[in-house]
């Protein structure tokens, strides 16, 4: 990993844009998520995947409630804003009425694995032809860093101050592995955004998931591990490493299921 610039003092030279990372399907230049947040990176790969399959004019997204929600007015595809946890059922209604469209959900781990676990499981079990995308940072980022169902053992959050303890808080749910077991799930994968290679691999997973939907093979799912330095209470620069070593050692990255795919 390259040297990280110190963030305790202002930079001696002004920041300079060296490359454009804004996908065409994002209408705003700036976002208001924290520096070092992994969610915008994951979202970029999702939007690029939609463009890659050429679906920008036949896509409907359904967004849950978390930090990523603020992108809702900036994403240039048709959207429905759902309640916390409820995006998969809303996506089901959308898809049944508009079967010709590509339908995705965008949810956090609190949204999908805590509040709405039953929604995503049944949507997968029905083999619903939608793609659910999970931004998994192991915390409720939006509320300020609270424990979720994916928080790993030992992880400190606002309501597991001494670290998640199995005896007291129970064990994390490995949602990707769980969904992969269901017959209705045609594609399941877990990616990460902690370095360039993992970002590229995540982009390929998202594209494969959308292609699975296009081919009508069944439910598709991509979990993306994302940094949340704010909710993890660590320096921004340590986010990628923490993601890779702490979260990534439990929620292991890779394709989990690929059914009848080409």
């Amino acid at each position: 990993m390259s040297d990280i610039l110190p963030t305790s003092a202002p930079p001696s030279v002004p920041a300079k844009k060296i490359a454009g990372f804004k996908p065409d399907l994002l209408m705003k230049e700036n976002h208001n998520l924290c520096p070092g947040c992994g969610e915008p990176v994951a979202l970029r790969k999702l939007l690029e995947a939609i463009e890659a399959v050429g679906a920008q004019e036949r896509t409907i997204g359904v967004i849950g409630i978390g930090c990523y929600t603020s992108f809702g007015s900036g994403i240039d595809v048709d959207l429905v804003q759902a309640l916390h946890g409820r995006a998969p059922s809303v996506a089901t209604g959308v898809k049944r009425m508009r079967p010709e469209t590509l339908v995705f959900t965008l949810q956090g781990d609190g949204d999908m694995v805590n509040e709405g676990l039953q929604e995503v499981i049944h949507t997968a079990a029905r083999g619903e032809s939608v793609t659910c995308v999970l931004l998994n940072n192991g915390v409720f980022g939006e509320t300020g860093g609270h424990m979720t169902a994916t928080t790993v053992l030992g992880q400190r959050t606002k309501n597991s101050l001494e670290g998640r303890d199995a005896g007291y808080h129970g064990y994390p749910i490995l949602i990707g592995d769980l969904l992969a077991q269901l017959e209705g799930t045609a594609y399941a994968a877990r990616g990460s955004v902690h370095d360039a290679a993992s970002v590229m691999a995540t982009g390929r997973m998202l594209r494969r998931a959308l292609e699975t939907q296009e081919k009508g093979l069944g439910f598709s799912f991509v979990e993306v591990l994302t940094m949340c330095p704010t909710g993890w209470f660590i320096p921004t620069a340590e986010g990628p490493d923490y993601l890779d070593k702490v979260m990534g050692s439990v929620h292991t990255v890779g394709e989990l299921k690929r059914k009848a795919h080409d």
Partner: protein
Amino acid sequence: MTRRLMEGSEAMAEAAIAAGCRFFAGYPMTPFTELLEGFAKRLPESGGACINAESELEAVGMAWGAVATGARAATGSTGQGLSLMQESFSEITRAELPLVIFNMARGQGDYYQSTRGGGHGDYRHIVLAPADAQEAVELTQLAFDLADRWRNPVLIYGDYLIAHANESVDITPRTYPPLPPKDWAVDGTLGGSGESRTVNPLGVDKKSLGIDPEGLWNRLQEKHERIECEEVRVETGFTEDAELVVVAFGSVGRFVRHVVREMRADGLKVGFVRPITLWPFPSEAVAAAAHAAGRVAVLEQNAGQMIDDVRLAVLGAAPVVAIGGISTDRSGFGVGDLLNPAAVRGRIEGALSTGGNFR
């Protein structure tokens, strides 16, 4: 016009489909189950879909997604299942989506739930309360029109009798004045960038910089005030020279109408007011009848809920007494001893004989 003998639930499902409903999701619960069965049987053959949802939470979510695409869609349950759906109802109202909701209630204890809204925040649903299967058919069709016209959920308050009684009905599709185009719905075609849309409960569009809750809520309140002015529906009978007016809704209202006619035939000066819209409440009709008669009795199958709206309408100008009450058999499905003309007559005669003293 062709009349057919049909179970109320089946007739309501057919009426909804005749009105263009193409999506339904629900979770079985007595006495709502047959309505779900009706949709499950008939929607696929009409090119629609009916999903047996995992719970009422998913049912309302699915219907939310379907209406967001511009399709006519509905969900429903009994009051119990609707309790689970309330978070979504609040937000769907704020997203101004034309959802139709069926409450095949167990009795009339859900009056507050339907008219006050069991969910959070300031919102209103138009609530239609049919008295029999034929009216349920007509109000089902009207519900889809009103929902689209106002971009607001419409709830139909049914019950066990309406759901299960076989009655003669006519399901010819009604015609209504033209509706505004659904230029807010998402069909997926507007991305990158045909000016993509967002359907949301925050009152924002893709160009918004932030949210403006006060602006949104004021706009909704203004809409709800217009609905209050324009959509009141009520049936009254014998109120001109009545000495006592009885207010009742739904199936109970049907019993009251029947009993009042019988009592009139016997020379007793009673009248009735039957709210068809529970919200907006027919306050003017109730007030006018109360002023003329000088005495009001409210017969509802609950511990006293609609009586609040009656009292607000009458504003102290006449005494208002409750002559209904909780009445259910051991099934708990809301069909008790009160649903009987003799019992209803007994209650009304009791109110008549107490003269002006209602305490």
